[in-house]
């Protein structure tokens, strides 16, 4: 469970990034954090694994204070960054997936087993020895997900998982999210493109100018999206029933 209490953070230039944010994410829940650019989504999720320290307030991950114990928080919360190129550090897919488990100080055999399992989970075992810079955008994003899954985190956080991806790329990433969802992982994703995941999420939280405006189920929140400068999904515009974006 993630518990955020009175979280406040200010950027170095003095502008407020987060203003007294209070939020709880239950075990096994999939929470979508959405909001326009610059609303504080990325800043919020970077507090979940202790990458950023709150100016005031606290973030607790399964009882661990993320600011005081960032190492423990990073083990529990795996973060998939918006720009996969920033996250991929290995020359090959296998090397990159091994980066996290090696940092945990695991024995060689366990690292190999975790890498194999993570690559299989995201369906890129055939790319294991391919240089990362030769992969497509969707494949890179899956490598980034595999790198995080190899650390076996309890919670997986996605920062704009569909940014700069084509249709097949989006489908690949969505398929991984669906898999994780079925496995019962706690998931948090940020996006301003609600359409793609709205059918999968349990709750939606709307950020606007650093404030958490509303939290609720998709049925409660979707009709209010446009008032926060977020494009509502097509189904709601046409008065249709909710449709999953991923084809069967």
């Amino acid at each position, binding site marked *: 469970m993630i518990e955020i209490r009175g979280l406040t953070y200010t950027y170095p230039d*003095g502008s407020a990034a987060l203003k007294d944010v209070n939020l709880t994410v239950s075990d096994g829940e999939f929470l979508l954090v959405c909001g326009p650019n610059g609303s504080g989504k990325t800043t919020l999720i970077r507090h979940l694994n202790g*990458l950023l320290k709150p100016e005031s307030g606290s973030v607790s991950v399964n009882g661990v204070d993320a600011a005081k114990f960032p190492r423990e928080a990073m083990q529990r919360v*795996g973060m998939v960054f918006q*720009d996969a190129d*920033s996250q991929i550090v290995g020359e090959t897919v296998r090397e990159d997936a091994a*980066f996290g488990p090696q940092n*945990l100080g695991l024995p060689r055999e366990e690292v190999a087993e975790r890498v194999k399992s993570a690559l299989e989970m995201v369906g890129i075992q055939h790319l294991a020895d391919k240089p990362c810079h030769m992969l497509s955008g969707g494949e890179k994003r899956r490598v980034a997900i595999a*790198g995080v899954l190899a*650390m076996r985190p309890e919670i997986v956080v996605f920062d704009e998982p569909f940014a700069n991806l084509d249709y097949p790329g989006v489908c690949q990433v969505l398929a991984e999210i669906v898999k994780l969802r079925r496995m019962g992982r706690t998931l948090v994703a940020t996006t301003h493109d609600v359409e793609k995941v709205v059918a999968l999420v349990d709750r939606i939280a709307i950020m606007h100018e650093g404030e958490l405006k509303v939290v609720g189920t998709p049925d409660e929140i979707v009709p209010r999206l446009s008032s926060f400068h977020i494009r509502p999904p097509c189904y709601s515009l046409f008065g249709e029933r909710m449709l999953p974006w991923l084809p069967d």
Partner: protein
Amino acid sequence: MAARLTFHYFPGNTPLHRWDARCKLAGMAILAVGILHMDAAALAAFSIVWIAAIGLSRIPAKALVQDLKVWGIFLGLIFLIQAFSCVTDWTEVFSGLPAAVRTLKPAVLACWRLGLILCFSVLFTFVTRPREVQDAVVWFLKPFPFLPARRLALTISLTIRFLPLILDQAEEVRAAGRSRLGELRRNPFLRVKYFLLPVFRRSLLRADELAVSLAARGYREDLPDDLPKVPRRHAGSLVVLVLLVLLASGAPGEVAGISQAAVQKVTDLLSHPRIE
């Protein structure tokens, strides 16, 4: 939102922001050379000037100091190199504080000078738009007929523009590495490898994209220079700064010393029996 302030332009309407970029650029160049010749008292005076200028330009000083702390590692390294190269007898260093200060003074001064130049450079980028720097460089280089002024100016302004972006990119890579507990790695070479490779790859890709986008937007080097004359008041401020730097760096004395030595040399040569 960038997590750092260093080398970013910080919008404002303070006197330093409004000061003509050509004056700022010339002032920065003279200041950098002058600082290299300053003694401790002058360095202290110009450190106070820098603090005052930061206050004047209304930059969040706390965040700036936080940023500059990182450069402390770089300066510390230089201090060590300087100390090892200038200290011949290490027993003096450990024989008491006054002796240590006397022996290590050159190393301290070298670090102080570099640190102060860095501080003023950061201030310069804070209050000057990269576009203004580009125009200023073109203006300075235009009288030299064989120099590609616009290309050089673009190179300089893009360097200034991209330095903070590369540092931001490096920060992003570091954050991603930290998220996967990369900081627990004991092997420093592997740590450097896992940090530098993605940063370089991303920077080179960005440079490629930039070159293509410049070409796509019809970049040309034969555009006319339409900068107005430097306002008298702005030029006056530059003159004051130059005089202060000359005074603080002991330049009048040096100039006098050089002239005296030159006169002596000529006198010697003329009185030499081989010259008739």
